């Protein structure tokens, strides 16, 4: 059941969080509708960050450029981390925003362009995961 409200400053923090995590996920400033849904999800779904996840989240809010690596590292070493759960819910929400539908529905492109794009995301994903694992150990 939806909790009616969250404390106001908490909702504000969640909105800031949504904007940071969202622009990492889709590479642009996110729609305010997505922000509102992210806050709504926090009224409904439990997100329980352990101490280390909370420290990571604080770090990421200050240094968003680390998000890809931390996310990639967690995908390898702590798949069910609730920090990733937050990203996952936001990803689901973004998928339902019409403005971003192009990013989620397959687009026509030449075969070679598809292969090149796959290679780019694949290589970047592996690099991010490796640096993320190191970061995770260090933090």
């Amino acid at each position, binding site marked *: 059941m939806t909790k009616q409200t969250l404390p106001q400053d908490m909702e504000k923090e969640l909105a800031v969080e949504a904007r940071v995590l969202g622009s990492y996920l889709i590479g642009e400033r996110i729609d305010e509708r997505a922000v509102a849904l992210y806050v709504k999800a926090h009224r409904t779904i439990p997100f329980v960050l352990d101490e280390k996840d909370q420290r990571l989240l604080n770090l990421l809010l200050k240094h968003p450029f680390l998000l890809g690596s931390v996310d990639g590292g967690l995908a390898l070493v702590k798949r069910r981390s609730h920090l990733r759960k937050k990203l*996952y819910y936001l990803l689901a929400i973004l998928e339902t925003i019409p403005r971003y539908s192009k990013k989620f529905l397959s687009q026509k492109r030449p075969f070679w362009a598809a292969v090149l794009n796959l290679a780019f995301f694949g290589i970047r994903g592996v690099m*991010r995961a490796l640096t993320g694992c190191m970061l995770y150990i260090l933090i």
Partner: protein
Amino acid sequence: MSVDYEYVVIGSGPSGTMAAQTLIDAGRHVAMVDVGILGRDYEATLPQGSYEELRRTDPNQYRYLLGDQFESVDWDDIKVGAQLTPARKHLAREVERLIPMISQTFFPMESMAYGGLGSGWGLGAYVYSDQELARAGLSSAAMRSAYQVVCDRVGISAGQDDVSRYVIGHLANTLPPLQMDNSTQQLYKTYQAKRRSLNKRGIYFGNPAMALLSTPFNNRKATRYDDMDFYTDRDRAGYRPWITLNVLREHPNFTYLGGLLALRFYEDETSTFVEVLNVHTNQSRTIKCRVLILAAGVLGSARIVLRSFKKDVRQLSLLCNPYSYLPCLHLRMLGTPLSAQKTSMAQAFMIYDEKNAGNDIVSMAIYTYRSLMLYKIIKEAPLDFSDGLGIFSILQSALMIVGIHHPDAPSPKKYLRLMEKADSPTGDALFAHYELDGTEAKQVAQKERTVRSIFAGLGCYPLRSVRPGFGGSIHYAGSLPFHSSELAGTTSSNGRLHKTRSVFVADGSGFNYLPAKGVTLTLMANAHVTALNALAHE
């Protein structure tokens, strides 16, 4: 002696509704005992339009895609039912509370929904061959005509191609086949180029038989190919048991008793008594009838029988098709979007009949992936979400999901028992154990390897096999097997439960063998036959 009802049918799934319709058609008075949970109505939130159009335009799509309470966004590991969309989420509601299951080895899906699991079934409607019917203990003459009755009630679209003899057999009056999408058509072309050598190896490819209308039928509309099948039954193009049930409820001889969980039954010289629990008030009461028809689903009927024969029957057998799915990459589709117009259901059907003898075939239902949304598969990749999105948005149109079913036969390692559980409303829980023996496990593994190589040979490259655990096929049978002698916990060939006078079993509990095909069309046909047998028994 007066009874409350002439016939009582327990369960509103495909089995129960078909049995009830046959009894009503024969002029009998029927009451249906059912829990009957209804879904949240997302219909009102759903504008007209295809999945792709809605994705591009509807600002409120999160409501029916994710759910108002985000109930469809599942963070846990993949389990049976994880794919249920908000409109179908009610299928799993109240199951853990009302009919708990204890098992380390068996993870079935059951439902207390109005229309049972049939409110979310994938509509794959396949006949069993005479050989398969005989192994299951079913009469092929009776079943052939029953298949036709059911086909004429529900409407089945199917092709005339290499798999027809496996999927529709002797059925007449089928509707034209459903359109395949572009990825599946491409795969079909590759198959046709290699057809002779594949057929020699026992591999056949063609249209699935689907209880989804390709043309209008019985006041129902044809599919719009809008790829919204997981989100709405708006046009009733797909057959759902509640379609029949809603019509039956208008009939003066039919009474629907919702909110009731049947616990057990007993008989005296003239009547049968069913003890039921009101799931809202927790009050129990007894309903008196002349004939009782059990159609609570194989696991549901097992619970009722185990409670009713507590002293004489402690353990029942169990059948379930071993199941896995194989995501594959159909590389030719890279860079080409899927057809805008498609159904969300199985696009094609494949048979692996190793010895070309129709024995122990393996079946494969082929799906393409779009309307279950991308975020669900991105989660499964060991990658950061942003690169996962980049990769899967490109791979999506090339992704094919092959659902592989294997046949199942009884063994001492597959069984059900009732256990005490004080905190459940019935005071008990069903315990299940399911394990393949060495030979069975070897066969499954070997056939899966062959399936992988078949798909690779068609240019559709398998990624890892996903095994949702035993029970994941959602095809169950064999708990009250057909038996020629009057043995408690078994069923006679006409569907009467042994050691009872007037209790009949209309779901799949009697089957002695479970071929590797969707079981539901056969469940419905068997329910019709059982109802006829009950009438003949009067």
